């Protein structure tokens, strides 16, 4: 997660504009207070509040009441142009007009390349009822074959009608392949997710296993340390009169260093 940017930088550098400040008022406590207010003033849950009622509310609760939607004829400006909500009703017509303009040649009025194409494979409601791979192979080989046929036609008669048909065939095949591949995308996305999850499982298992191994090793070292420590002490106790204090101190220091080395994995 990204750290929230400091307040002053936020305004300048954040990718999205900050939400309006009143979103902070939408707390469960405030929402409860609002419904409390509505019940005490016997207002319907869905009914709009009058101005007077609104003014009775504490300031922070006023934000919780949605404003009335603008009237359909109210004007607002988009990109410096005045428009109304009515204008939205023309939207489908506008889009249709744009579409038809894109599909016809601006000068001659002929239809330009039409991207609708004949679907050469059966559409299937469920994923697995269609062998997409087989169809992809089939289309791919057909494209190559069509190309060779096209070469033959061109060598024989470059002006023949047959070449246009062949070109159209290649186009149809290529478009079908693209469509098939695009239908495959959700499947690939799921497959990628599965792989990623498997990797995570693997990683976490490794981590747990690593800790367990380390634990065992530390256990061993400590056990060894305790044994040798006890033995050492007994020896020292037995020979207390003979070993000088200085030697005992050195002995213990050596022991300590040995243990440290072992623990640190040297």
């Amino acid at each position: 997660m990204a750290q929230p940017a400091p307040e002053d930088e936020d305004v300048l550098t954040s990718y999205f504009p900050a939400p309006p400040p009143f979103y902070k008022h939408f707390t469960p406590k405030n929402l409860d207070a609002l419904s409390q207010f509505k019940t005490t003033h016997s207002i319907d849950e869905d009914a709009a509040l009058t101005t007077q009622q609104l003014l009775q509310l504490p300031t922070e609760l006023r934000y919780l009441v949605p404003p009335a939607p603008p009237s359909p004829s109210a004007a607002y400006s988009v990109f410096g142009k005045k428009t109304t909500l009515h204008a939205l009703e023309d939207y489908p017509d506008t889009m249709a007009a744009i579409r038809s303009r894109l599909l016809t040649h601006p000068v001659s009025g002929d239809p330009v390349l039409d991207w609708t194409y004949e679907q050469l494979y059966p559409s299937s409601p469920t994923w697995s009822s269609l062998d997409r791979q087989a169809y992809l192979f089939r289309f791919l080989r057909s494209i190559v074959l069509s190309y060779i046929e096209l070469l033959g036609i061109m060598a024989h008669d470059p002006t023949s009608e047959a070449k246009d048909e062949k070109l159209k065939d290649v186009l149809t095949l290529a478009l079908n392949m693209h469509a098939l591949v695009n239908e495959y995308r959700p499947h690939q996305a799921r497959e990628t997710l599965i792989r990623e999850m498997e990797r995570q499982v693997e990683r976490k298992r490794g981590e747990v296993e690593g800790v367990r191994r380390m634990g065992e090793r530390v256990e061993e070292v400590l056990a060894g340390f305790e044994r040798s420590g006890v033995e050492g002490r007994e020896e020292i106790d037995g020979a207390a009169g003979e070993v000088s204090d200085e030697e005992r101190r050195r002995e213990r220091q050596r022991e300590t260093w040995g243990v440290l080395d072992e623990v640190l994995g040297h």
Partner: protein
Amino acid sequence: MGDILTQIQDELDMLLNQMQASFAYIRNRAPPTPIPNQPTLSSMQEFEAQNAAALNPSAAPPAPPPPPPREEFLKDIAELSRDMVLKEQQLEVLVASLPGLDKSEAEQVARMKELERELEGLEGERLRAVEEKEALLRRVEGKIVKAGKMGS
């Protein structure tokens, strides 16, 4: 596993491009086939250049390079064909290695659910392991401090 699907689409477009390029090459560069006892005709490109020069003598395009000798042309054609076949084979390999062909959508979803459960279980185990690790660390630290005191 990269994004095989996008690769397939890119390679497919490239294959079509290669086809187009080969056609253009043949059209522009094929040396005319001499017919016995007939005057030799110019190649398509030369022909077009001549026409353009005749129509508009002031802005005549530069004369095209002379068509390659027959052997060279055949060699180029062979190379173009080889590239195209190679591209097609590449596409076949890509299609053959599409991910998850043997799985239905339901199977995928089931596998994802299973993995999710497993991950949740492992996460708990991992947290326990981390705690264990810290406990071990404390123990070792304690021992070292004790050993240090003993030695001093």
